[in-house]
């Protein structure tokens, strides 16, 4: 039954997984560029960002084709409309990774203050992105909800980094410029976490019909 459509939906899942991987690679590369002052990694992050943009256009075309040819309803319609929304968030994740890589260009070789929790934030944000896309591909609501909850961890890390950077400026006013750049990077990572939450919410929508599924609401308008 509808084996061609099912194959195309499987292809959509694969393309989304690929886009999620590109996002992860962009985040890792941008942070390696920062932590190890690696220019090649900054270039990698920008290259991934361009690949992510292309992937967004390809997935968009695939979704438009499926809407036109299959006229999907119910779960199929939710899957395809969620995919269209998710790729917008993933595209922003790619932009933010590229923005981080851009900042590393003018921080230029200064060692990262050891006490600042940027690396932990990076790992947490990247984990959210991976899990949110995986939850879509596996159709795993629990996993999507875990991503939404995990946002608090990233938000707390952001507050911690902010305090650490404030302390750094107090100790040594000459590091203020670098501290502000690091704060920008932390903010981008925090935004990446927010986009991953959006992706997870679209996963919840595709599975349940609600972006914020709670206990099933009474359908009072119906017999």
């Amino acid at each position, binding site marked *: 039954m*509808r084996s061609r459509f099912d194959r195309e939906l499987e292809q959509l899942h694969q393309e989304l997984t690929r886009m999620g991987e590109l996002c992860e690679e962009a985040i890792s590369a941008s942070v390696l560029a920062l932590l190890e002052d690696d220019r090649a990694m900054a270039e990698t992050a920008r290259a991934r960002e361009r690949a992510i943009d292309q992937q967004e256009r390809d997935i968009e075309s695939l979704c438009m084709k499926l809407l036109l040819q299959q006229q999907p309803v119910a779960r199929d319609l*939710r899957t395809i409309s969620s995919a269209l929304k998710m790729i917008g968030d993933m595209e922003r994740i790619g932009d933010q990774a590229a923005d981080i890589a851009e900042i590393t260009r003018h921080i230029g070789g200064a060692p990262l203050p050891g006490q600042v929790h940027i690396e932990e934030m990076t790992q947490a944000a990247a984990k959210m992105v991976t899990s949110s896309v995986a939850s879509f591909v596996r159709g795993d609501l629990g996993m999507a909800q875990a991503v939404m909850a995990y946002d608090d961890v990233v938000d707390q890390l952001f507050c911690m980094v902010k305090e650490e950077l404030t302390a750094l400026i107090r100790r040594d006013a000459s590091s203020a410029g670098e501290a502000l750049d690091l704060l920008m990077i932390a903010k981008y990572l925090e935004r990446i976490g927010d986009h991953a939450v959006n992706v997870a919410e679209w996963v919840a929508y595709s599975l349940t019909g609600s972006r914020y599924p709670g206990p099933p609401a009474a*359908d009072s*308008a*119906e*017999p």
Partner: protein
Amino acid sequence: MAERTILAARDLDFYYGEVQALRHISINIPAARVTAFIGPSGCGKSTFLRTINRMNDLIPAARAAGSLTFRGQEIYAPDVDVTDLRRRVGMVFQKPNPFPMSVYDNVAYGPRTHGIRDRRRLDLIVEESLRAAAIWDEVKDRLKKSAMSLSGGQQQRLCIARALAVEPEVLLMDEATSALDTISAARIEDLTLELRERFTIVMVTHNMQQAARISDKTAFFLAGELIEFGNTERIFSMPRDKRTEDYITGRFG
């Protein structure tokens, strides 16, 4: 706006001889709304549609059990005047079936049968019915021409005008657009939405997109049973029953 039930079935069974075509159907069909019946061939949706104006009476050994009411009156009660029932519950079929007579006489046929002879009154009914069926402008200059000279889409709208001429309360449409091209079908769909203001419309369709576009309520039938009934938007976005989901997404079987 609150919904008023105009047609109600309670544990309705229907048999063609030994074959049970409907099983324990219970449903409230709201007035002044479009209700669509969907389901695979042989699921009972057309049989149920035809119980509403007792079109099935023509089939030998067909019988109903349980309750089916129209404005609270039992449709299968022995004292029901079936001719009057069919005036109040009109029907449009899959294949346009104009009578082999003029456009005017097609529309005037029903009112004449019900005893209206006055020429001016008939003229008025014919014009109003043709206008309501969105075909007046196309036929006003050839009312005396044969209905058979009209295109398929025009013939179907003429059939709708003929049904409307006797001022029905309910209009049953049995795949009324499936034999038409997309433009004619779209005109009938638009017309359905306009008529909803004044009539209750119950339609059988195999076109899922059409059901999603123009109906307020959707009922899914399978093997003589009503599986799921609810607001169309909900049925096509979040069906509750897996069988409904499988059917509307084309993964049935």
